[in-house]
């Protein structure tokens, strides 16, 4: 195949870096509200009927939404194999926690209302809470660690060796990042509940949503200040070929300086944090003014801004190494081969638009609020 020579290796790498961002944002915008609803479930819905209402707002869509996460994993594997190898084996116990929580969730949705017993249902409600809260927290904690650099090194055979433990992940900065993640996803879940449910559930969700939006603003601002003041950045110290071979050890990297230097270098990226703040502020207004559609959009804007700001600030770094900076994974030296990136791009160009079209169609078919009536009338078939 020679076709792939028509797109530069360097360009393909940037495209796949951007697509990685698109997938993460796609995951946060869709499955993000499922996680948020799970986290809010025990608090916004008290009776069985209320809980079933809340669950059924995400009932028909969580399965498709979750594929963003699976696809994210697959795309990291295919486009950034060293990232897949280093991060998943390094964050070993954290990954296990996420998997356990995410396995609980589908089962919780599907099985909860299949028995009448109160203990059965309440147990699954807590399972759904864990299935929402734990991944939301751990994703944020992981990002917080990535920003600081992760204690791994690559041997000459490119075998990743991770030298930190599980509890090392739970450092103060990472926990703050975890709070950003929980706040924004709870905001998103609340916006969805207000949009798709009614009555007491929607009222309580509105209140939680306002708090969560404020918390998003506060924690995100704090994390930003801390990043500027107290977190070391990473930078190349020598020349690096953007279309060079994918061997991270071939470039020299040093720790030091501030991530905020990126904003001097590429001032336009300030768009991302502005979106983050503006979106959350608009969400507060939207919740208050009972503009449900607007709130949903505002929440999406904020989440997009928050996730994009991390990627844009770190570019071209993807996963810096704190103990051996030369092992750091960057856009220029940890991708798949030229041909693989091209093949993957072709399949993404074919299938991504199709996915967006049919997903939109499904949401359109399901348009409208889930009411208590709906749940009672279809008690046998809904969750």
């Amino acid at each position, binding site marked *: 195949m020679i076709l792939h020579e028509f797109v530069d290796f360097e360009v393909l790498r940037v495209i796949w870096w951007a697509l990685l961002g698109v997938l993460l944002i796609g995951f946060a915008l869709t499955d993000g509200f499922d996680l948020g609803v799970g986290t809010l479930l025990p608090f916004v819905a008290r009776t069985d009927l209320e809980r079933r209402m809340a669950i059924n707002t995400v009932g028909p869509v969580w*399965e498709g939404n979750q594929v963003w996460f699976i696809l994210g994993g697959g795309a990291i*594997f295919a486009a950034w194999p060293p990232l897949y190898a280093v991060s998943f084996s390094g964050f070993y116990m954290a990954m296990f926690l996420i998997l356990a929580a995410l396995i609980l969730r589908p089962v919780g949705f599907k099985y909860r209302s299949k028995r009448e017993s109160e203990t059965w249902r309440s147990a699954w409600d807590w399972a759904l809470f864990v299935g929402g809260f734990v991944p939301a927290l751990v994703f944020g904690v992981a990002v917080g660690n990535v920003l600081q650099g992760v204690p791994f090194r690559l041997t000459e055979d490119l075998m990743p060796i991770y030298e930190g433990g599980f509890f090392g992940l739970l450092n103060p900065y990472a926990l703050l990042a975890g709070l950003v993640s929980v706040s924004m996803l709870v905001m998103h879940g609340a916006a969805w509940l207000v949009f798709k449910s009614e009555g007491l559930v929607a009222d309580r969700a509105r209140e939680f949503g306002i708090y969560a939006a404020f918390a998003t603003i506060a924690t995100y601002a704090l994390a930003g200040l801390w990043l500027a003041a107290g977190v070391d950045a990473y930078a190349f110290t020598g020349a690096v070929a953007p279309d060079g071979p994918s061997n991270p050890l071939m470039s020299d990297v040093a720790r030091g300086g501030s991530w905020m230097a990126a904003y001097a270098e590429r001032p336009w990226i300030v768009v991302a944090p502005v979106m983050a703040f503006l979106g959350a502020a608009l969400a507060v207004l939207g919740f208050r003014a009972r503009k449900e559609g607007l709130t949903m959009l505002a929440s999406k804007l904020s989440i997009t801004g928050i996730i994009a700001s991390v990627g844009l600030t770190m570019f071209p770094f993807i996963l810096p190494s704190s103990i051996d900076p030369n092992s750091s994974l960057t856009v220029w030296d940890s991708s798949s081969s030229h041909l693989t990136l091209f093949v993957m791009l072709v399949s993404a160009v074919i299938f991504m638009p199709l996915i967006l079209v049919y997903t939109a169609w499904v949401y359109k078919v399901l348009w409208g609020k889930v009411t208590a009536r709906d749940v009672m009338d279809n008690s046998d078939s809904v969750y």
Partner: protein
Amino acid sequence: MELDIVELSRLQFAMTAMFHFLFVPLTLGLSVIVAIMETVYVMTNRPIWRQMTKFWATLFGINFVLGVATGITMEFQFGMNWAYYSHYVGDIFGAPLAIEGLMAFFLEATFVGLMFFGWDKMSKVTHCVVTWLVAIGSNFSALWILIANGWMQNPVGAVFNPVTMRMEMTSFFDVMFNHVAQAKFVHTVSAGYVTASVFVLGVSAWYLIKGRHEALARRSIAVAASFGLASALSVVVLGDESGYSATHSQKMKLAAVEGMWETYEAPAPFKLVGLPDREARETKYAVQIPVAMGLLGTRSLTEEMPGINDLVKEAEVRILNGIVAYDALMEIRAAKGAATPEMIAGFEEHSADLGYAFLLKRYVDDPREATTEQIAMAAEDTIPGVLPLFWAFRVMVGLGFMFIGVMLFFFIRANFYGMRFPRWSLWAAVFAIPTPWIAAEAGWFVAEFGRQPWTVDGVLPTALSVSHLSVTQVALTLAGFVTFYSILFIIEMGLMIKYIRKGPFMDVSETEAWNRRHNDRLSGRTSQQPAE
């Protein structure tokens, strides 16, 4: 037995993958059966077919969700437990996994919600299309996963790059149309269809025994028997295709499955039963069918099939070649980007055998320093566990032929004996329910255990593929998965049984109304006849 990190990681993969595959075959097959039933409903408009669709879809849903949940683990554990593998072959192996998500899993998962929640929100035809999309998505999913697995069995379209220390793709076309992958895909999907057919047959038979839901049960048996018969035939025929393709790509696996220690004069006999003995290097008490293996494996009477002992000798030669390749690789690395074309050419001459040098890493850090004894040991390691493979294969094949018999019996009874089934046959159908799962797990065991000591055949040894983790970490997650999965399994079985006991939701008034209209139409036709 002391468990090291390699053994534990293998155990964990085997456990999570085999557990995942308890749900996959039923998803593959039942999605199609439900779609067929719904199509009949759309075409005939008879309420019974919608009730059937909804009933089997409920059971499909209970099963599907665990397939999805356990599939999450599959997508992520390569990176968690097999980091070096992920680095080494991610350039090829990752692509089919990602395309699976893009092309198949998104389709399946997005529409499965509508399939359950959308009955009142769209027209009958649209809903039927949605159900088909779920079935198509599930089956495409299997295609891409088997392309990934097929590459591990027969790594085509890729070459080792000494600068990036990994395999890189040279032809996506070769990876996608890998004959091993294609044969495996059709074999696996057909096995899924058989599994679902046996399941539908068994549950319906139980209803007939209990005298419940007879209309639903009889129609379900009719669908399951015809679909199941076609699939059971296809499983055996395409399983043979799988075996035939192994003749050329995985000679050692085939020799082990056959307990074939020495190279026979062509055509080789097939051993019906026997007791492979590794120490004695022979298969004791063998009952053989002459000529059969040669015919099946080579489709000729003259081509020889190499035995295990000869293959070990071959492996020894390849290890020696691999050491040359390894030496050239180290030279290229020492040159730090200034490798001469001669160095590269020297490496490429033997690079196909590089993986064989890695087999020595179990015994010595630098393969170049290996003793003759160690080389002999590494060559010996290329023999997988012959005894379990020999029997797992025979269990699978035996059950495969049994399915043809069962399906044929019910097909004939359903079509030519007015749907009358002897009571013993109904009980037999009930007790047959677990058998397709046994066959499927045995089949995967042959495929994966038979590939040992490699994760990617001839390219990367299993012992080298693992992550740098502590035994405690892997033991902890293994224990976690075992506990967690056991609980989920009990819950799932409980719900399955509850919903099978409960039976279909029958809308009596609707059925009666339909029957009235139907009778009116019939009598209307008879009263009109004289007028014509």
